[in-house]
């Protein structure tokens, strides 16, 4: 009896999940928030920034300052691939960190925000 029930359960599960595709993609490395907290405005030097966070993904140079940019992208993509109908969504979000350095290489400002913790696997083609 248990074998039959398990068989029915597995068959039902296989039917329900048939055609389901779940995938995920990432670009870059997640920003290390613990190391980010060690960076102090007016104190930390660019060499320490690089030691803590690695080389920046992009450097924006201006006459009186440099901006180190670090970014990370996360995307989740569920899909339903049926015989006659296909539905696919891909939801991507980004984290960005900007560290402003003066000409002496000292950190002046930090702009950081995180969105990737809100990426979901929702499968809805409508909405904005």
């Amino acid at each position, binding site marked *: 009896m248990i074998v039959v029930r398990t068989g029915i359960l597995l068959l039902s599960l296989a039917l329900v999940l048939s055609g389901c595709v779940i995938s995920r993609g990432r670009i870059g490395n997640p920003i290390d928030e613990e190391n980010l907290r060690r960076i102090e405005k007016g104190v930390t030097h660019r060499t320490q920034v690089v030691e803590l966070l690695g080389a920046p993904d992009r450097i*924006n140079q201006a006459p009186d300052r440099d901006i180190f940019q670090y970014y990370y992208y996360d995307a989740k993509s569920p899909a339903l691939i049926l015989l*006659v*109908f296909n539905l696919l*969504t891909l939801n991507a979000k*980004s984290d960005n960190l*900007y560290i402003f350095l003066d000409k002496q290489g000292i950190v002046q*400002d930090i*702009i950081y925000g995180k969105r990737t913790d809100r990426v979901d696997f929702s499968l809805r*083609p409508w909405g904005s």
Partner: protein
Amino acid sequence: MTVRFSSLLGTVLLSILILSVLGCAVRRVTFNEPITAEQLRFIRLGETTLQQVVEHLGPPEDITMEADQLIAEFRWSTTRSASLNLGYLFRLISPVSPTFTLSGTGINIEHVQFLCDKRLTVHAYAFGKADEHAIIEFWPF
């Protein structure tokens, strides 16, 4: 007679439903969350800092320097794509189905830019213009 009619009607409706989704594919790609004008009501030009904007909206995708000014750009997008393979109809009568697909894609890339001074105080902001595309656009002509 009534039972037979409703059964026939149900079969016809089900057939229409199945036929209407035959060969259909709907795809949607989103990048970041949309930012609306209502979300920016807290901003006081000349007072609000970029840090406060980031706390409300998340981080900008790009920061560029222009002389003594700085431009922070927030971007988000929605791409919708749909296709209808009319060749699927041949599967009803033939083991081999030709491909004849109508497909449409709408890409909305939207942005809002903030102009800040050296101290990262917001002095102006502006939305880019974008047209909203329909969820499903099969007709490519």
